[in-house]
């Protein structure tokens, strides 16, 4: 009986994150007001879809943030990166010709294409070889050349295709390709500075956070702080796809979020790259000595984080129909909070994408419940802060320790005299 209890208890402890979400969900149902027809507003499909829509931006950023935090780093520049993505997207959609937006986006994505191809083609080809996979550095020169040539061709095609759209303004697909490419480039640059300069990620991404906001504002020019995006009049009508509902229930941003969670969750759990991320967060020096290219992995995670943040910027533009240079201010803290609530250790090496997913949902449902209860927004902030603290305390298992300590303090000490010491001799030890 006791054994069964401990098994159940362990199971509950292991899955406590999900229980937290379930409890919150239950509270949502109970606390929710009822509409005129007597239906529970919280449970309405529209409300559930709204929650998914609202969390998806934060969620997409949190996915990238999870990778970064797992390596033991942090990315404070994601909010600014989202603002930049938002500005770029709005400009590309609404302004024809060579503007600051297209001048930035087209060449950057071309360079990114060349670099990606010449890195990935040898990597993939060595992986395709019959097992065991060869180290990348043994890739033949023809393969490397092929990668570079392929990259150049692809970049050429991309430039041709996007410039051909310049007169009629950008379409949905070209925005979805070029804007994340810019995020990838800037994120990669951040990673390069961090790994090659051996600097603290906190300070480097803090600097980037400040600088990128500046870039976003510069792009917009001094007069236009906000770029309205009216689909159908000053931008392509198709852009509305990014805010549509699939099957009338699932919002498209939510699908982006889910795909990101699944894809990067898979990579994290099953790929060699994922292993390296955990290894670096667990013990960077040991990973380096095991012959892992720590610097490359770091560049990659910051690049991915930047890419996802700028993608969130595109979705923001679709959602709020405007590009503004402070679209993402403060977003980085929400993302970090979601990751940490999800049980990922800020020191790196421990955590899962599932955890982040649940963390994002907890955050989303909490906001939703407070909104439905019509609670003063300032009180909402206080409550959210409290919930983050409580979640982290529970995750770290400190609460149980407090209890034990209290017990130890109040325990009665034995009152008997200490025993007389007895020194055993070797003989009676046997």
């Amino acid at each position, binding site marked *: 009986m006791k054994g069964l209890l401990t098994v159940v208890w362990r199971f509950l402890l292991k899955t406590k994150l999900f229980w937290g979400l379930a409890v919150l969900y239950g509270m949502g149902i109970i606390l929710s007001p009822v509409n005129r027809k007597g239906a529970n507003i919280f449970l309405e499909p529209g409300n559930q879809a709204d929650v998914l829509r609202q969390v998806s931006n934060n969620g997409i950023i949190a996915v990238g943030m999870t990778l970064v935090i797992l390596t033991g780093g942090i990315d404070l520049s994601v909010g600014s990166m989202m603002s930049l993505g938002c500005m770029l997207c709005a400009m590309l959609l609404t302004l024809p010709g060579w503007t600051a937006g297209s001048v930035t986006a087209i060449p950057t994505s071309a360079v990114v294409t060349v670099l990606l191809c010449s890195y990935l083609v040898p990597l993939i080809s060595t992986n395709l070889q019959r097992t065991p996979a060869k180290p990348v550095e043994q890739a033949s020169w023809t393969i490397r050349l092929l990668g570079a040539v392929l990259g150049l061709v692809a970049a050429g095609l991309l430039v041709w295709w996007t410039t051909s759209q310049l007169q009629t303004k950008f379409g949905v697909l070209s925005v979805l390709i070029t804007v994340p490419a810019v995020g990838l480039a800037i994120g990669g640059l951040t990673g390069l500075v961090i790994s090659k300069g051996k600097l603290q990620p906190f300070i480097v991404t803090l600097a980037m956070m400040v600088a990128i906001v500046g870039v976003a504002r510069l792009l917009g020019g001094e007069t236009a702080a906000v770029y309205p995006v009216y689909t159908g009049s000053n931008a392509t009508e198709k852009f509305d796809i990014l805010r549509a509902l699939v099957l009338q229930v699932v919002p498209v941003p939510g699908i982006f979020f889910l795909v990101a969670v699944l894809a990067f969750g898979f990579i994290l759990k099953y*790929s060699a790259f994922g292993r390296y991320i955990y*290894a670096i967060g667990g013990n960077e020096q040991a990973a380096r000595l095991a012959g892992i290219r720590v610097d490359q992995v770091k560049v990659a995670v910051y690049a991915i984080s930047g890419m996802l943040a700028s993608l969130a910027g595109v979705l923001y533009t679709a959602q709020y129909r405007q590009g503004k240079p402070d679209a993402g201010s403060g977003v980085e803290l929400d993302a970090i909070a979601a990751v940490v609530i999800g049980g990922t250790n800020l020191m790196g090496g421990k955590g899962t994408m599932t955890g982040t997913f649940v963390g994002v949902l907890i955050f989303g449902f909490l906001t939703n419940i407070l909104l439905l209860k019509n609670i003063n927004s300032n009180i909402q902030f206080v409550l959210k802060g409290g919930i983050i603290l409580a979640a982290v305390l529970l995750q770290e298992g400190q609460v149980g320790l407090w209890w034990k300590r209290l017990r130890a303090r109040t325990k009665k000490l034995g009152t008997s005299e200490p025993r007389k010491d007895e020194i055993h001799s*070797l003989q009676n*030890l046997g």
Partner: protein
Amino acid sequence: MVPSDEQTKASDPLALQMRRISKSFGPTRALTEVDFEIHRGEIHALVGENGAGKTTLMKIAAGLIEDFDGEIFVHGQGVHLNSPRDATRAGIAMIQQELSLVPELQVDENIFLGQEKLQSLFLVDRKSQIQAAREVLKTLDFHGALQVPVSKLRVGEQQLVEIAKALIAKARILIMDEATSALSINETERLFQVIRRLASEGVAIVYISHRMEEVFALAHTVTVLRDGRRIGTVPGKEANRRDLIRMMVGREIQEMFSEEKNATSTEKPMLEVRNLSLENPLPTPMRPMLVQDVSFSVRAGEVFGLGGLLGAGRTEILQVLYGLHPGTSEGDIWVEGNPVRLLGPVQAKARGIALVTEDRKRDGLILGAGIDRNLGLPVTRTLSHLGIVLPGRERGLAQSMIRELNIQARDSEQTTGSLSGGNQQKVVVGKCLVTKPRVLLLDEPTRGIDVGAKAEIYRLIGELARRGLAIVLASSELPELIRLSDRILVLREGRPTALLDRSEYSPETILEYASPGGAIQPEFSKLEVTV
């Protein structure tokens, strides 16, 4: 000396008595109803294999582990020891294996950390701190400067600073955990004198050590722990090596110092090193280079020993060979006749060089990850297809390594942080073997591991040499170096002073060549002149 007079013993309450101490870490029981007692002025050695619970028991006494069962009495008074502060108040101080000084603070600031002498309400009275620190340190035979950051001191001196800190806090019970593991022979001897004097002044000293010689040299009493239980307590005079080892491991083990000749082939060298040198990142006029003009060659199947005192450059040579100092190191290296560039671990690994680092926790293992993940890490790419790790292949590799190296673990997914030191070390060695190296660099391969695991590592090194690996072994333990090596290169302050064959080995010879001002073999003295 220990109070030999029976009467004082009876009237004098025990300095420290721990009763029925039990402690579990999750599912593993670290201690089961252990009793431990020590008198004033007694030097009490606590021995046992790694994982036997010595450190855990003493951490409880030092208030570093708060959640345990059992009772503790200090000088006959029951006490709650739930924090280091409680322990300090009870007069207990522990000097841990990893020293716990603040590297950037100066000597006196460290000594008075948390117990600062105050001038007014919050101004620190440095002058009287320094004076008090100097007085205490003088009794410990420390005469160096006090107004320097402790990171500038040698490890032995840092240890004296820790002891001074304990004495200033009026500690009457001093616990030392593996105090000599990083000390040179001279420093160890000095530390012993300090310990003996403190004991004669009535301080009770608990001395945890792996080194039997030290236990016999110091202890009045020896307590043996095995698997978290007290096996027995014997007076130091009655203890002998054989019995203690039997009590520690619970079985007879073959004496590990059996001579065993490695079959060295006469083929051309597997590893050849010419004029290796490494710049000193903090150059001093005495020591512009950390390693200078070191040349040697190692044949397949040979164990090549690097000997010397602390700071002689042994570790640095291995690091340079593994490519950890690109830019500041120079020299030519050939593996199987092919020149190798010293660029970094990636290149070293690709050329068949593997390194077992000196500090397994800092550089070797990901403590939070399982055995399988650790073992698979260096070969993740060969374990995967299209970038996806094949779990079956990873498990297979882990299990075959666990079997081959006889790693004691629940399963292949157990986290390496929860393994004992010996098993951790086996995992580190396994991490090197999975890359199928041809040259294996071993830096202190048995530091801080118990006798049983040590014997196994020794056997493994012999086995690997027979398989045709070229092994370079750096060790500060002379018996180990002498037993394992086919040839020994002795270093002094980064320069070679002698190349010894098996016939010339003896601890005295090696020390003679290793010590400053000692002898130099003629072929190496020429180098001296040219510099």
